[in-house]
């Protein structure tokens, strides 16, 4: 009898290679005669390019070629935007290398190709560019004012979108309580630890592109569309990829240009960004101004919610730029019931790096907006923030529940998760300590932050993506092959970059086929190997891709059953499948699935109509999103004399449905919480008034280290998803979505007796101190 693999804290198959340095990061790879590419980037936020002269660079030692944007004007195409979210959307031309005009600092204007990276760097200095400066546009409100300079000829409005449900006027008319707040989601830099890298090679006919990407399959299609190179002549490989967090969910200028340079030069080329280059040119995240109005009854029951967003697109619309705020459109209402809802969003062009997906993508923003507002409602009514949530959330017996925004939440139990979190946190005791510190006027005040969140995962049901005008589907694909010796290859369309799919998919296949965990290998990330896929983002891989593995295994098992029935001379219906073997009911006759794999390989005695292979494949496309939820509680100590915030304890109880590997789930939540805390306390991409990015290095953009973070206390509740047969809900983004408002709510809770009802993120000691100074005066 084999033990069940699903649910076991299996140590990862991926680790040995990563721990011993036998890695395949794109920058580790090389080809005979490989050339190094470096890009000259605009130092101006907005300028007309008058002249680019690369001739001096071309003559330098080791330099093979140098090109300006104009040299590729006829073939470089325009970087794609796959999500035109509204009828009125403006999608400007986006050349991979600028030709006539630059619109953000860091935009590529020329490139050098040399025998090594040192010589390429030297040659960049020899390129001359004349710019005619144009005015920078950095502030969204100013960008929309009538006299603003324009980023693009069509103006600074990229799109506008509205969702309405219920009678908002009625909800606000004579409402006993109206909360009206504006929150700022600062701009963030995703900062995967592996900088981006691309290598491209050609045999004269076909092309191979290695890229540090989350989306090899999408990238292949898009490279074909952008360059006109036929899709079947392009192979994309995502080797080991060192983190993504959405930042490698992109079709980048550098990927397109490396492909075109390999074609132009007939030689392999490689580009690896420096971190400073990456801070400037890896797409940024968040950057919204949220105006939120909430109407409630005197007992705290929500009547209506109105959300107006300005979302900074940056200078261009990249792969899913305009879709990011729209992913939050149906989630500001979160877990709460209400009579009316309105969501407005305006996408705004500025002369900054484009924004796009960053861990959570639209959902952290929405969760922050509503969870901050719920705390303000509680304060207004002098209710406990837990109590005001209880009075509004969907009760567990009400699932499935169709929300005011039109999503149908299939399952959940907010009461159970919250009760568990309160108990682990010691909520009442901490409240008592808080009261005591307030009474004593302790200079170090205690704050307690609550965040009860849900999100939509498993991006996504293709039909719903179609309704949202997204340019692709959201299915996922898997193949499962039994090899002659009984070992198993699982080929997945997901493209992991730290999530441990090799381990989890092995656990899933081990249970489905009854084979040992160790006998399974998982292949991915190469369009010539995993020939179909929609890749990894949006907490979709397990919920969609893992289910595709289950379905492919089911088909393999049913094929094996037919073969077993033939070999054992019985009816398929007389066979029981148990622990990897088909047994004839009531006898001791059996065949293992490994024996059947060998029988399929030799094909000496196959029944009519059965092919000589024990393999299959499947795609899965769910009917609905999945909706993880949970309750996060954070206790902070705020030093009112210095503004220093210290997280004293952090409890997270998440419900991510069925868990395949609790170790991996815990790791995902740890990392997610850390990234959400980073937004609350540390990180901000800062542009000056001229559009210069001031946070170009890790010395200026403050990623938290081990010394900046506490340990977290985690637990789970488990209400399986009903939208997929695994019951999984997705876990990649939950921590990030929940933690940012938990931390900021805690800080505001600590300071509320001082008359403070908001601190803008990141809540640095200086910001907290200035907020206190503001009310002391």
């Amino acid at each position, binding site marked *: 009898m084999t033990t069940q693999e699903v649910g076991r804290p299996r*140590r990862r198959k991926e680790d040995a290679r990563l721990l011993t*340095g036998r890695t395949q990061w794109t920058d*580790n790879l090389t080809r005979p005669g490989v050339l190094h590419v470096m890009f000259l980037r605009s130092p101006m936020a907005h300028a007309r390019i008058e002249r680019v002269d690369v001739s001096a660079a071309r003559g330098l030692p080791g330099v093979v070629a140098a090109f300006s944007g104009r040299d590729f004007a006829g073939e470089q195409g325009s970087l794609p935007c796959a999500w035109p979210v509204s009828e009125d959307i403006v999608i400007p031309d986006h050349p991979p290398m600028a030709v006539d005009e630059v619109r953000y600092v860091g935009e590529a204007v020329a490139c050098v190709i040399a025998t090594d990276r040192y010589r390429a760097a030297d040659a960049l200095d020899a390129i001359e560019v004349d710019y005619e400066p144009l005015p920078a546009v950095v502030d969204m409100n100013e960008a929309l004012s009538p006299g603003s300079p324009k980023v693009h000829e069509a103006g600074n409005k990229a799109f506008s979108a509205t969702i309405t449900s219920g009678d908002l006027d009625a909800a606000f008319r004579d409402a006993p309580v109206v909360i009206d707040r504006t929150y700022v989601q600062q701009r963030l830099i995703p900062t995967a*630890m592996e900088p981006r890298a691309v290598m491209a090679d050609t045999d004269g006919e076909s092309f191979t592109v290695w890229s540090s990407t989350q989306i090899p399959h999408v990238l292949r299609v898009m490279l074909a569309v952008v360059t006109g190179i036929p899709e079947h002549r392009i192979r994309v490989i995502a080797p080991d990829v060192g983190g993504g967090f959405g930042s490698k969910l992109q079709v980048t200028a550098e990927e397109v240009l490396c492909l075109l340079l390999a074609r132009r030069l007939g030689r392999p080329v490689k580009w690896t960004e*420096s971190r400073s280059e990456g801070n400037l040119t890896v797409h940024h995240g968040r950057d919204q101004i949220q105006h939120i109005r909430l109407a409630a009854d005197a007992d705290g029951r929500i009547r209506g919610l109105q959300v107006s967003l300005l979302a900074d697109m940056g200078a261009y619309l990249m792969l899913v730029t305009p879709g990011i705020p729209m992913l939050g459109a149906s989630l500001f209402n979160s877990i709460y019931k209400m009579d009316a809802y309105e969501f407005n969003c305006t996408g705004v062009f500025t002369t900054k790096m484009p924004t796009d997906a960053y861990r959570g993508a639209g959902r952290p923003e929405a969760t922050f907006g509503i969870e901050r507002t719920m705390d303000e409602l509680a304060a207004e009514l002098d209710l406990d923030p837990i109590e005001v949530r209880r009075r509004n959330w969907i009760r567990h017996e009400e699932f499935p529940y169709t929300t005011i925004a039109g999503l149908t939440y299939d399952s959940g139990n907010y009461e159970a998760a919250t009760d568990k979190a309160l108990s682990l946190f010691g909520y009442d005791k901490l409240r008592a300590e808080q009261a005591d510190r307030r009474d004593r006027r302790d200079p170090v005040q205690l704050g307690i932050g609550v965040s009860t969140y849900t999100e939509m995962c498993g991006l996504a049901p293709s039909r719903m993506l179609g309704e949202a005008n997204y340019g692709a589907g959201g299915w996922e694909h898997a193949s499962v092959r039994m090899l002659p010796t009984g070992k198993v290859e699982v080929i997945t369309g997901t493209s992991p970059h730290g999530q441990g799919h090799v381990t989890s998919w092995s656990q899933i296949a081990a249970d489905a086929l009854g084979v040992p965990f160790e006998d399974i290998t998982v292949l991915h990330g190469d369009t010539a190997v995993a020939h179909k896929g929609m890749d990894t983002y949006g907490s979709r891989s397990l919920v969609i891709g893992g289910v595709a593995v289950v379905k492919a295994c089911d088909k393999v098992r049913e094929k094996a059953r037919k073969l077993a029935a033939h070999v054992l001379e019985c009816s398929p219906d007389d066979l029981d499948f148990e622990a990897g073997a088909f047994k004839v009911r009531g006898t001791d006759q059996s065949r293992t699935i490994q024996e059947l794999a060998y029988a399929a390989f030799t094909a000496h005695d196959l029944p009519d109509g059965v092919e000589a292979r024990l393999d299959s494949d499947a795609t899965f496309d769910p009917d609905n999103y999945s909706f993880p939820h949970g309750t996060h509680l954070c206790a902070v100590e705020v030093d009112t004399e210095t503004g220093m915030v210290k997280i004293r304890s952090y409890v997270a109880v998440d419900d991510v449905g069925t868990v395949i590997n609790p170790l991996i789930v*815990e790791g995902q939540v740890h990392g997610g*919480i850390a990234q959400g805390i980073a937004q609350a306390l540390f990180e901000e991409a800062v542009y000056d008034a001229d559009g210069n990015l001031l946070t170009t290095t890790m010395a200026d953009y403050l990623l938290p280290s081990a010394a900046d973070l506490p*340990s977290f206390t985690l637990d789970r509740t488990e209400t399986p998803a009903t939208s997929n047969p695994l019951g999984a809900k997705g876990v990649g983004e939950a921590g990030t979505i929940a933690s940012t408002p938990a931390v900021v709510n805690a800080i505001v809770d600590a300071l509320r007796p001082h008359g403070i009802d908001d601190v803008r993120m990141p809540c640095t000691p200086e910001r907290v101190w200035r907020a206190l100074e503001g009310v002391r005066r």
Partner: protein
Amino acid sequence: MPRITVTVDGVTYEEDVEPRLLLVHLLRERLGKTGTPVGCDTSNCGACTVLLDGKSVKSCSVLAAQADGCDVVTIEGLGANGSMHPMQRAFHEEHALQCGYCTPGMVMAAIDLLRDDPDPSEETIRQGLEGNLCRCTGYCNIVRAVRRGAQEMGQAVSPS
């Protein structure tokens, strides 16, 4: 061009190097030691940490010429006889890595940390690894792994 002699993971190399060549580029691009990655250009991230004559250094901040006559140990040279170093095993057991990009530097820094304090507290580990950034794990399991690695290394060297 200066000629240097450097031992890396037990193998001695003689190399002519440009004065400006960084140690990490010598390792990665000349010697094929790609186990040591580069994560930044301001010596903040620590991904490129190696041991130089037994002490941890960020190899992006050391010139190859400065390593002349030195002994370098990278993540590739840690294990012995095909088995992992106790610290590598501890990272595996505690799920202290996800994407794995920071891992080589984190493991090398952790080993160096134990030279100063063979039985570090959580707080000591957190402070000691301040120069090594991880974006995936939130550090919880890294701290656990270093505690575990310390215990196993302590047992390995304790007199029987």
